[in-house]
């Protein structure tokens, strides 16, 4: 094995361990954050008994879930019932592998053991031990701060995220319970519907960056504008689809408590239930990180290009920036949850298929046309000018879109929608205050 390959493998393993650990611990802390945010928004305090300010609450919950009894419904399909939590858990965690969490780090050494030996006091021993175990480890160039810097990172995310629906649909089916099945059915319909809008909404991102790798998308944003401006409509559609994909309120129909008890995970207990929970929060993290990466420049620090230099402090700083951006969107997801009520099922489907999908398709046409016009007809080659021009176009479309959306045409009551389409010749009139008696029909 060449020293370079050893370096690559070593750093990949380190990145994997870090990302995996941070993801799991972060998800555990997010459950606490969700409870805290919900409590604050309801003028309560939230969990504050276990540990300082309740910080150990996730650990207590985890311990409880491990010690709890595993229940198996008598008529359930045992194999699939066991498989389903894993099927929703694994894709959720896999997604974190391809999202860049900091600027690339410039590394340049021929022998890592010698570098370690330079650490004062203990370095000598550590260096020798390292050398004895790994031999010569070298690395030259920029180390991408992502577990797998896939050239198809973006497609990977779309492909894997759509696998999450298997876990939920199988959980619903294998439980052999009517509530679970209804939850599973709703989940599959909802996630497949919004997958379409989500995928369509991201095409303009590809058109603008000309690449499907996350690194290239971030680089393009760093060189021009963050895509939230030029591709505002895409951002809007992606955000809504993201909510629907993660089954978060206002799209939590698969687990609508008031209708379906707990939906697809009604029959699950202990750690298996916990795995669905972890998957949900991991998906929230992924969607937030995706929004931050695709539309808010990822780890890009605005107004400076120094963050691409690869010096270690810029890498740390860029990671902080990425963290803040992601964290804001995670908070936003929770914020929305405690603000908006749940959609009705027909509203959900109408929004997905009748609004977001055509909107995304039309937007692809507009962006593609605009890029062509700017580049070939008007001869603009500067990406920044192009981004500004697209921002203006997007804002105009955005204003029109919100004006139309605001007319109540999409998610209003079905009755008023029907009336708008075919006005009733005989309007019902009320006689008296309480008795809904129609005068003529």
């Amino acid at each position, binding site marked *: 094995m060449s020293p370079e390959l050893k370096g690559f493998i070593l750093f990949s393993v380190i990145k994997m361990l870090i990302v995996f650990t941070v993801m799991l611990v972060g998800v555990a802390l997010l459950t606490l954050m969700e409870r805290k*945010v919900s*409590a*604050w*928004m*309801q*003028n*309560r*305090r939230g969990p504050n008994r276990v540990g300082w300010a309740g910080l150990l609450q996730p650990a207590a919950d985890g311990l409880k879930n491990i010690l709890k009894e595993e229940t198996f419904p008598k008529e359930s399909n045992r194999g699939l019932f066991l498989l389903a939590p894993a099927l929703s858990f694994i894709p959720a965690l896999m997604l974190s592998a391809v999202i860049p969490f900091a600027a690339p780090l410039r590394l340049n050494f021929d022998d890592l053991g010698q570098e370690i030996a330079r650490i004062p006091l203990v370095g000598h021993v550590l260096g020798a031990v390292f050398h004895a175990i790994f031999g010569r480890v070298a690395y030259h160039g920029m180390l991408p701060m992502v577990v797998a810097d896939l050239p198809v990172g973006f497609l990977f995310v779309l492909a894997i995220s759509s696998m999450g629906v298997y876990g939920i649909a199988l959980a619903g089916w294998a439980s052999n319970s009517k509530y679970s099945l209804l939850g599973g059915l709703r989940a599959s319909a909802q996630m497949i519907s919004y997958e379409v809008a989500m995928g369509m909404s991201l095409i303009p991102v590809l058109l603008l960056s000309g690449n499907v790798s996350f690194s290239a998308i971030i680089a393009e944003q760093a060189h021009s504008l963050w895509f939230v401006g030029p591709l505002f409509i895409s951002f809007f559609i992606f955000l809504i689809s993201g909510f629907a994909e993660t089954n978060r309120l206002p799209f939590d129909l698969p687990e609508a408590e008031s209708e379906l008890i707990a939906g697809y995970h009604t029959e699950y207990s202990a750690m298996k239930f916990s795995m669905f929970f972890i998957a949900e929060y991991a998906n929230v993290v992924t969607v937030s990180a995706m929004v931050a990466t695709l539309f808010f420049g990822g780890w890009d620090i605005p107004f400076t290009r120094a963050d691409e230099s690869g010096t270690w402090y810029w890498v740390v700083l860029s990671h902080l920036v990425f963290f803040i951006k992601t964290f804001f969107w995670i908070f936003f997801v929770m*914020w*929305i949850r*405690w*603000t*908006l009520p749940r959609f009705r099922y027909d509203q959900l489907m109408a929004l997905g298929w009748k609004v977001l999908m055509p909107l995304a398709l039309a937007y692809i046409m507009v962006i593609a046309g605009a890029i062509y016009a700017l580049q070939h007809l008007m001869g603009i080659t500067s990406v920044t000018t192009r981004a500004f021009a697209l921002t203006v176009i997007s804002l105009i479309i955005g204003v029109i879109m*919100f004006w139309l*959306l*605001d*007319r*109540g045409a999409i*998610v*209003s*009551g079905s*009755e*008023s929608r029907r*009336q708008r389409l075919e006005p*009733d010749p*005989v309007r*019902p*009139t*009320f006689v008296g205050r309480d008795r*809904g*008696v*129609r005068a003529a*029909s």
Partner: protein
Amino acid sequence: MAIGVKVMTRPEREVSYVRATFKGLALTFKHMFQTKVTMQYPEERSTRDDRGTWTLSPRWRGTHRMLTDEQGRSKCVACGLCPQVCPANCIKLVPGEDEQGNRYPLIYEIDEFRCVFCGYCQEVCPEEAIHVGQHYENSEYSRGRFVYDLERLSSQTHAVSTLWDPTDPRGE
């Protein structure tokens, strides 16, 4: 039209859900920084505090208390009215009589598990001996401990309930 549903035509600012969403977001965000109303129960008791928020109502009907006279004997004369009126049948009373012909309870037990805390016993008591009190922390390690005998009822020290007075419904 299947049923006579009157569809209101409302002004746009009332039906605009984009605006409503932003309004809702602002509202929930504002609430995050408001004073928390949670009472930190074991540390913060339902007694008087500076804010005077968590005071227990003087009419609260909780754990029973038997009042005693100056010699430390219970005021109860074992008339039998409280077991008679008790809707939950939780009072056990065996009356006794001393040499002077004074009646007193030989056994007086209240099963706090059975009790529905209606306060009838206090209301019916001619000697104002048995009372329900402003106290609610009754946890024990065994079920048997929930049957309070006379000694235990007499040794309670919490304030007694004022009950509801029909001539003074607001408690003024």
